[in-house]
């Protein structure tokens, strides 16, 4: 399997995701935002960070970068596209995923381990979570408060497009287990074809036994199938 990680000025999880991909034997290339063509890739990843300083609106300037046109083409052809944290924000700004990520409800950056519930296994990213659907994973963001109007929320629920919801250790999804004020505790969503996934938590930071969890590994293992 081949992947490309797009590097924007201000990306800062690009190395982390590359390390994770390679650890799980996915052949990865780094692609500079100013390029116009993607190398041949089964998977494209938009990494976390503060592209363009997160100035103006988070993700918005990266969403207008040169390489994005080819990323859009890749996704329209059904290629896999994963946006993590800032990558998720870029996906919404580039209209590849619906909704938008607003500032955290308490207006503070939040960095901590949270629990999320995996809600959909019939896709290329999450099949390995069938036996373990409540996972521990770190978040680290200032704008992770997913906002969507009621129509959109209904559509996401009806079509089963919600990938993850914040929950507690037991799997209960409620206000207490919602770290940032996201509508319906949403932590990640798919597009209709489920070839695009945007998520706020960082699977690439939970891939080995020395870190506070290894649960992120399963995403990469799922992708390999």
């Amino acid at each position, binding site marked *: 399997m081949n992947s490309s990680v797009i590097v924007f*000025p201000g990306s800062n999880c690009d190395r982390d995701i590359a390390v994770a991909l390679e650890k799980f034997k996915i052949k990865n290339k780094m692609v500079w935002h100013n390029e116009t063509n993607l190398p041949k890739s089964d998977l494209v990843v938009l990494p976390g960070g*503060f592209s363009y300083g997160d100035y103006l609106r988070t993700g918005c300037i990266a969403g207008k970068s040169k390489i994005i046109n080819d990323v859009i083409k890749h996704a329209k052809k059904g290629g896999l596209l994963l946006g993590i944290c800032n990558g998720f924000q870029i996906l919404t700004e580039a209209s590849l995923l619906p909704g938008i990520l607003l500032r955290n409800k308490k207006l503070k*950056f939040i960095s901590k381990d949270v629990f999320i519930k995996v809600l959909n296994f019939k896709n290329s990213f999450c099949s390995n979570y069938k036996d373990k659907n409540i996972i521990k994973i770190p978040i680290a963001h200032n704008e992770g408060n997913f906002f969507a109007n009621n129509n959109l929320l209904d559509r996401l629920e009806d079509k089963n497009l919600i990938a993850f919801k914040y929950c507690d250790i037991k799997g209960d999804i409620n206000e207490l287990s919602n770290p940032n004020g996201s509508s319906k505790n949403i932590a990640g969503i798919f597009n209709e074809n489920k070839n695009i996934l945007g998520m706020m938590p960082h699977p690439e930071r939970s891939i080995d036994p020395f870190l506070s969890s290894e649960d992120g590994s399963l995403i990469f293992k799922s992708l390999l199938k």
Partner: protein
Amino acid sequence: MLISKDLIKKHGLKTDEFSKIVKLIGREPNLLELGIFSAMWNEHCSYKSSKKYLKKLPTKNKSVIQGPGENAGVIDIGDNDAIIFKIESHNHPSFIEPYQGAATGVGGILRDVFTMGARPIATLNSIHFGSPEHPKTKNLLNGVVSGIGGYGNCMGIPNAGGEVKFNSCFNENNLVNAMAVGHVNKNKIFYSKAKGVNQLVVYVGSKTGRDGIHGASMASAEFDENSEDKKPTVQVGDPFTEKLLLEACLELMKGDSIISIQDMGAAGLTSSSVEMASKGNLGIEIDLDKVPCREEQMTPYEMMLSESQERMLIIIKNGDEKNAEKIFKKWDLDFSIIGKTTNTKNLDLYFHGSKVANLPITSLSTDVPIYDRKWKKTPLPKKEKNLVNYKKLKILDSLKKILSSPNNSSKEWVWEQYDNTVMGDTVQKNGGDASVIRIHGKNKGIALTVDSSSHYCFAYPQFGGMQVVCEAWRNLVSVGARPLAITNCLNFGNPEKEIVMGQFVECLNGISDACTYLDFPIVSGNVSFYNETNNKSIEPTPTIGGVGVILNLNNMVSQSLKSINSLVLVIGKTNGHMHQSELFREVCNINSGPPPEINLFNEKNNGLILLKLIEKKLIKAAHDVSSGGIILALTEMCLLGDIGAKIKINSNNLSNIEYLFAEDQSRYLVEIDEKDQKATFNILKENDIFYEMIAETKKESLDFDKEFSINLKDLKKINTDWFTKYNEIK
């Protein structure tokens, strides 16, 4: 006379200093030259009050590659890996504009580390505020914390610890000390010493603006009511540009075109160019028309004194400039050849074709006046007996009171605002004694901590200074790391006052003694004097940043209790030192008396033997006993591990409250498996180490005989509530 008395004073120079300048250069300086002198000769850049004492500090051992004198210190951790680190203050700007002041503090210290070729792998910070009730405190706390986070998070460098303290002596003078730690291949370290004549001097990074002019002089002056009007001296940080600068510099550093490199920190273009030339015993010539400016019609004076952020000065090998320019353009940064090195040993500045300044480099650097300031000893306070009958206090009530006090509350609220998992190598996070960052791709790591103790240092500076170093040492030992070296940030009041200078001298003596005995040298640091408002000085606050190494990460331990039915021991003797303790301060309202004394032999012995036990895998958890005594240490171990404990005191002639709350030094709590009891005791006995059993671990509650039993959930709430409530907006 061209230069008036008033102008001299405005530049923070004394009249005799000005006379010295005139003598050195054989004429009166022009305004630009006066500005340059004022920038180089102020306390912040010249260390004129502290140099005499800094020279005496131990700065070498077999792991030190570079001690004080460069942008940051460098130590060897084996296999060609070196660690570069330094701590620096940004106190004054953070008081005037907490968000930007703290943010640019982080930005500045990061540049000190990556200018030497290291990729930053962690930041730490020590922040001190006035009393929580003071009307400014909440705003300062929120601004500083979000500023530190705002910059570090954007840079993508994990936060690996820090400390937050409140003390009314900081009401009008908060402290923001930021530390950065980087990793570099030992053979690829870059230094600031210029070499060779006619080499190109290159300016890279952001443009120069009118911001922060005279920031360094501000850091060398006291505050008064009007300080908030000193407007343009605070800069706005741009972490995004800094991130680009970091990547561009590291990309250029892969090759060998850099002769020397230096960030533009305090006193900007002036100090960076003078330092490079001075170290290389060369001259430097700059054409100011080539300096990239953000605003129109900037004068030479403004360009030389601006403290705009995110800029570097590089001396590049002739012929390599094209390639370098390409890299900086790729990262959208300014790149401009502004001058060259010369053999004149002068600083020569040109503007619009004419020479506007011409100063001997030595007059700016080595000829700085050095002061041997008068100082006064702080007397050792007496132990006062029978102040109150504290022995009658209820243990649980006292514990709750301490646990919920601002200084002893969990700092989760703070560090949850700092990204501490980015880079994927944080193997032990904030909340323990030291954080541990893995060396990328390897099975070893470094342990990091920062510590200070203004109360101890104020009560008796020498003991206090010694204690901070030992505390840092202990914190590193507690995670299983070999302590290697420290950096220090010395925050004091006005050195022109004898009592303050005395605090400085004696703290440094204590620091020096401890460092020497523990073979724990000082490799970098910073002095911040004039932390004083309306004639009131802060308590002396040296901050120590410690670095240790764990060669095999499988030997790392943490402070969280691991399982039920194991034993908890106290290593080190408890003599019942109560003065300056949290119990006295928070519960009895007694602030008098001496701080605890340290026996350096025991300190070292206890630490090294504990490391041995850890390496033999006999220790399941370890935590040093510091403020709050045994009971607070035990509670913290319980809370972090979510495992309870039943306290059993077998001791001696102390009352229970003394035993549990005393702050005697050099002690640790350790959790061991019942089956390892014998092996552990044997090693401790062989090495003459005093130890006692203190508890057995159990499920979910902390118990003490018939006196109390309290659920950990309740304790946790007591421990975390203060920050949440304090900052809640209802």
